[in-house]
């Protein structure tokens, strides 16, 4: 447990959600027979009471680093003025988190009450509160501190997406306030341009299975290094020797060693049982396009732009509550199609929409979810496309904002 609490505290720092010193240092507690923390902290007595009030084995506490701290502060304050919930519309929240409860006090009882129902709680006391400066996120796990880490990563990602999509919509509808303009101006310097310099990848063709594994591990690691996923999650596959080698479900893109499933395309084994939720979409894409490499990440501005819809058209749309699964319009980010679809293989699963889109082009964005890119021979092509599409989306977003603000 000591190793795990340290590992996930470090990962929060590596993901730039936390910092190695100062108020954004992650605090992670793990409980088996005894409770261990990754560090000493003033918050521990309250969090120990949280442990006592819940059937859990781990807690992660984080005052997120910028820009997430400011974003959460703003979203949480708004939530506290209404129903106490932040309700992002991205896929991650819709599927796994549902909504993000907010409380205004760093108090064990209130944290316990919120965590009884949800995986996380955001604590956002009033600005004049001297005893506790927020915002902070607390998330729990019943199996491993990894759960809290994943939840906090998702909360930060969802908040980022929500702020930028809401801001664009507010500009489009003329409802943006001076406060939100100011916050946008504070935050935007933190949004760095997409790295342009392509990394080196193992050249294809790959001579043997070992090289395939190495190439996948390398592609996963570089996707993280270039910040093209939220926290560490996405998926990656390579087709070689009639077999699709694909990252396992819930695997961390920077730790793919031992987490890649070889799945024969002829269905002769069910070894794909632990493969990524998107296995079906990957296999279908390979069959339809003949591509070899597939990368799936969650670049932020691809996700944000995928949810951008003309407010007037949206108001008149009969599917406006179900954009993520039923959007009837052919939409594009540049030349990259945006398709509806949920995670996995259900009737509205992205496996029904994504492969068709990738038949026409080498990239497709799934509404509110993320970007899929393909390479005919190697990961370099897929990676390059991913950078290009995200760069385009980021620039398009900023351009739209500037134009709307001028207007």
């Amino acid at each position, binding site marked *: 447990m000591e190793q795990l609490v340290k590992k996930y505290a470090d990962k929060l720092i590596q993901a730039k959600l936390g910092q190695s010193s100062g108020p954004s240092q992650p605090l992670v507690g793990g409980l088996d027979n005894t409770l261990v923390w990754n560090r000493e902290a003033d918050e521990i007595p309250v969090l120990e009471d949280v442990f006592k009030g819940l059937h859990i084995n781990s807690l992660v506490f984080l005052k997120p680093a910028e820009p997430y701290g400011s974003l959460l502060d703003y979203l949480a304050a708004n939530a506290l003025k209404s129903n106490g919930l932040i309700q992002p519309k991205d896929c991650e929240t819709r*599927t796994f988190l549902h909504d993000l409860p907010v409380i205004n006090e760093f108090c064990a009882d209130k944290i316990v009450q919120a965590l009884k129902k949800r995986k996380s709680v955001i604590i956002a006391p009033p600005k004049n509160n001297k005893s506790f400066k927020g915002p902070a996120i607390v998330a729990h796990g019943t199996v*491993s501190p990894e759960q809290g880490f994943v939840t906090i990563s998702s909360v930060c990602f969802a908040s980022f997406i929500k702020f930028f999509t809401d801001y664009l919509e507010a500009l489009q509808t003329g409802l943006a306030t001076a406060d939100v303009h100011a916050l946008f101006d504070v935050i935007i310097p933190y949004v760095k341009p997409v790295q342009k310099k392509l990394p080196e990848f193992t050249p294809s063709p790959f001579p043997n299975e070992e090289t395939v594994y190495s190439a996948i591990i390398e592609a996963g690691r570089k996707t993280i290094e270039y910040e093209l996923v939220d926290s560490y999650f996405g998926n990656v596959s390579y087709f070689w020797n009639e077999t699709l080698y694909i990252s396992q479900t819930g695997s961390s893109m920077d730790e793919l060693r031992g987490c890649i499933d070889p799945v024969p395309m002829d269905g002769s*084994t069910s070894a794909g049982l632990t493969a990524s939720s998107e296995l079906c979409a990957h296999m279908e894409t390979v069959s339809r396009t003949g591509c070899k490499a597939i990368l799936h990440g969650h670049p932020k501005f691809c996700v944000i732009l995928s949810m951008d819809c003309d407010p007037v058209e949206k108001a008149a749309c009969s599917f406006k509550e179900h954009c993520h699964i039923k959007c009837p319009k052919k939409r594009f980010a540049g030349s990259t199609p945006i398709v509806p679809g949920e995670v996995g*293989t259900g009737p509205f699963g992205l496996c029904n929409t994504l492969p068709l889109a990738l038949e026409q082009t080498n990239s497709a964005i799934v509404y509110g979810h993320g970007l899929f890119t393909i390479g005919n021979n190697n990961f370099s092509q897929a990676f390059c496309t991913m950078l290009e599409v995200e760069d385009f989306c980021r620039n398009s977003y900023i351009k739209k904002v500037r134009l709307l603000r001028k207007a």
Partner: protein
Amino acid sequence: MYGWTGKILIIDLTKKTIGVETPDLDVYNRYVGGKGFGGRYLRQCATLPWDHPDMVICIFTGPLTGTISPTSGRAHILSKSPLTGLVGDSSVGGKLATRLKRAGWDGIVIKGKSKIPVGIMIEDNRVEFKDAKGLWGLDTNAVHKRIRPKNASLACIGPAAENGVHFASIIVDRHFAAGRSGLGLSLAKKKIKYILVGGTGHCKVKNQKKLKLAREDILRLTAASPALMGQFGFTCLGTGAVYDLMDNRRMMPTDNFRRTRFKHASKLNAAAYTRTYSPKKHGCLGCHILCKKIGTKNKNSFAMPEFETMSHFTALIGCMDTELVVKANERCNYLGMDTISAASTLACRREITGLDYTRGKVLSLLDDIAFGKGEGKDLAMGSKHYAKKMGAPKAAMAVKGLELPAYDPRGAYGMALGYALSTRGGCHLRAYPISHEIFRKPVATDRFSFSGKARIIKIAEDLNAVVDSLIACKFIFFAAGLEEYATAYEAVTGIETSAQDLLKKGECIYYNERIINAMNKFDADDDDLPDRFFTETGSSTNNIRIPPINRGAFLEARKKYYNIRGLTANGLPKKEKAQTLGLLWNNL
């Protein structure tokens, strides 16, 4: 009252009387349903022998049964196990629970003993005893054909139960087995051949709109689960999908757990069965996962074997014949026997006698067990009894007398702890650690480490106890969580709750079972694994080493579990803890 019907049917077979209990809402909210209610009634007669006329057999639904809450169509059957003397329970699919609930009953508690074979027929409020002399001796398929239940649900026993097999099962709606713990024998002892339930009513839901939203959340998560709805998941391939994974992870119990790799496995996987038997999807009433598979060959249709059966009737007993597995599965279902215990007992026999099996020998031995012929008489008592009688007690691969399922614990240490501590003996489902140790849900854990596992197992036991009470299928928890099911519970019953509140109920239900077992003199000596796992290596590869489990580390983890669970160092319940949980306390 919403969610529950408010009525429990009490049947006394000795007096041939029928009564109705109407517990308060507080009682319902406390025990929930299913396993929780079964434990409540079993506790009242916990120290009676399993075959005492006053011993109860409980069949319960849950508050979610009969609603649109996903996977709520299972029933929970509970009594004292003839095989182990522990709490004996089994979750069973089909349509039994839904029909019972729609008939207006939350559950049935059966006491007493009939002098002649009877059937119990429930049609809404009407309850009748039927003479079943003419059905006694028939196999479960024949009973089904005779009774022709149509829309009703039929639970019945076969010759194995009638002839005293200690791992006799109850077969529901032809294809669904309440397999573990020998509950078929419990019915046989009371001379119950069948229970037929027809129900036409509706279940009252407090907030249908909210329930629909909860259902959508759960379905969305299920669709995102490769293990359930993926193209190699349970929906497409049935539970047999796990077979390749166990081979791949080198944890397939082989040759009575002497090895963990069966070299013929790749030819005996779910894909091989699919090619031969073209299975179709089938499942419990109202379930969307449809993990049950019905195969067809030569115009005959039959239930395909589940993963455990596929594994134990090949690797465990040293056979490499899919046709044998299908036939053995069918024989066990017709005769009414648990496939896991049957195969494991045969594997024990093979190790002791050194005699390998042919297809014919396996099938004839299954018949001998069911009809009490020759060595079948001893085998019918289960592996623990058989191995002891043969002078080789260590060849019984069982915990507390219940034969182990098809996950070798040397390949998953949470499973090792889960097996040892389970309140019904060698069971993978009480804590179901395969979820995180193999399926990576909710996140992956290190399968070769005990670190953190004591608390993980305790929390998972509580979770599954309440899942078996709500009721939902454990498989869906590879995808959804109590967070979503708490919303469903709240929507159905109108009682405000949370995932953590439900876990607390699960803790009470599970602790009650520890008390029942302690009242029957089970303690830490019984919370253990067969020696083999601590002394013999499994089948390693260059990349995966399967060493024996470190006994010191195992005992340390068990000690931690006792502390976390609130038990004494000897694994016994404590008065203070029981009182904290609001449970009755008997001086143990």
